[in-house]
């Protein structure tokens, strides 16, 4: 048996693959006009690199080399297939002609634009939200279908089918490979931000399963958030607000779950475990976004998270500010969940009785009657008011509504601790 010797060039090719493959892919999609053709060309280009670079040395601009190798391999493949499909001849000729004429299409600016095009195409509102998430993780982040399936606890075949359908729609419905025009940018950016936040939330608060968090996905979402800010032609406060929100939530990850996998509430968390670096970055981003006066719901949520992060102890929390921020947020997005959070903040500021009145009127409106956190919040307020029987009834109601193991265990613990 021969030993697997990794030469320095191979190590470098691997590193270049990790840092460049998604950029090269984004540009190949533009040049070849098709996701599948670009994927194939990308693999061909790296196969050629593995063959040639150890012999000829690594080119001065590996990115441009890979794009150009991928493009010509794709044109060659098209010519070979043209024997069976005459329409490919014309396409191959057109691609070859444009390869000869356009000189500046491979400069760094053009490649930056391609990455932005890729993000906006994967998050096009004409695709379903599930397809947007799967396609973004696959094409922008470079996760494999199996990795995506594992993180979302779905079958790889389901994810594969979602991606195939999305690519078919892109092709047949003519979804353009373009960043949106200025007038469409706010709406389109909103979709992108929601996709990123969906990915983050799936990693931060897994919707089902044994574990409370899946760090890989949160890390991926934060990377995406950073990439988006870097690529956007002008600063967008809500993109900064979203990155801030993710960083501030992420900063509490280790403190949020005990060593035995139990939920630790914000007020009980060991604040020395909070990641100071992430908090500092998050707080700076929030201030920047707030100063722009063009902020939206992500920035407001980040500002709330920042207020928590800046309190050295739970007692020092500025509940007045938090209640105020939830008030503004409720005006921007009308959501009963925001109202619930506002009620909890008011309970902290003005006492549990004030909060309970608000939570009860929210529950009466009906929209939150199946939301376990509304009942858990009510239970908690009753407990603090010494209304044990009511607290018990609400904890039990919450328990029937949750699907997550650590949440169940937390509620059961609270129930056991109630005085009988």
């Amino acid at each position, binding site marked *: 048996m021969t030993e697997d010797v990794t030469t320095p060039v191979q190590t470098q090719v691997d590193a270049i693959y990790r840092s460049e493959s998604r950029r090269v892919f984004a540009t190949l999609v533009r040049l070849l006009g098709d996701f599948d053709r670009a994927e194939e060309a990308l693999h061909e280009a790296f196969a050629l690199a593995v063959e040639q670079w150890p012999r000829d040395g690594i080119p001065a601009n590996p990115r441009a080399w890979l794009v150009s190798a991928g493009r010509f391999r794709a044109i060659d493949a098209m010519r070979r297939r043209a024997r069976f499909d005459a329409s490919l001849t014309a396409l191959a000729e057109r691609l070859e002609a444009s390869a000869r004429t356009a000189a500046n299409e491979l400069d760094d600016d053009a490649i930056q634009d391609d990455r932005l095009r890729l993000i906006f195409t994967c998050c096009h509102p004409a695709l379903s939200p599930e397809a947007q998430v799967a396609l973004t993780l696959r094409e922008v982040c470079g996760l494999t279908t199996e990795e995506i399936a594992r993180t979302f606890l779905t079958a790889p075949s389901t994810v594969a089918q979602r991606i195939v359908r999305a690519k078919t729609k892109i092709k047949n*419905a*003519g979804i*353009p490979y373009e960043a949106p025009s200025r007038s469409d940018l706010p709406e389109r950016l909103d979709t992108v931000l929601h996709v990123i936040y969906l990915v983050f939330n799936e990693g931060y608060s897994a919707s089902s399963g044994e574990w409370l968090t899946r760090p890989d996905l949160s890390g991926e979402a934060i990377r995406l958030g950073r990439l988006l800010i870097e690529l956007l032609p002008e600063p967008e406060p809500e993109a900064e607000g979203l990155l801030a929100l993710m960083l501030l939530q992420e900063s509490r990850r280790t403190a949020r779950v005990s060593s035995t996998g139990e939920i630790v509430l914000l007020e009980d968390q060991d604040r020395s475990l909070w990641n100071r670096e992430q908090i500092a970055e998050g707080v700076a981003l929030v201030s920047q976004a707030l100063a722009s006066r063009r902020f939206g719901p992500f920035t407001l949520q980040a500002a709330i998270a920042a207020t928590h992060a800046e309190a050295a102890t739970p007692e020092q929390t500025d509940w007045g500010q938090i209640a105020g921020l939830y008030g503004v947020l409720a005006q921007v997005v009308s959501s009963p969940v925001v109202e619930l959070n506002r009620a909890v903040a008011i309970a902290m500021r003005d006492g549990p009785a004030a909060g309970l009145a608000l939570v009860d009127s929210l529950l009466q409106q009906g929209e939150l009657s199946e939301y376990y956190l509304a009942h858990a919040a009510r239970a908690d307020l009753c407990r603090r008011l010494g209304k044990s029987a009511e607290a018990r009834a609400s904890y039990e109601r919450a328990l029937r509504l949750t699907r997550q193991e650590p949440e169940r265990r937390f509620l059961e613990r609270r129930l056991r601790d109630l005085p009988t």
Partner: protein
Amino acid sequence: MKYMLLIYTDEHAWTDAERNQCYEDSTKLTHELNAQGQYVSANPLHPVATATSVRIREGRRMVTDGPFAETREQLGGYFLIEAQNLDEAIEVAAKIPGARKGTVEVRPVLEIPGLPQ
């Protein structure tokens, strides 16, 4: 690419004045599209009460009264347009007066060879 823009609305939700205004605005839009080389054709349809459905089953022609499906909103008209891509087609769809009351479904047209020009 060609796109079919299908306008679905509740046909009883329109007053005569609204309907006439819609025809007027739509006609204006067809001229705008024509000036930009995007117009292929457009028409409103008579109400679904006038619809007849035809199907062939086991070689026999069956003709029935009524639309293909009874729905709350009905196909009330269409625009057939020429557009570079879906974003352009969506832009046109958003200008159709019917979109303000109903829904415009955007469908790319599948081009097949051999049709008369």
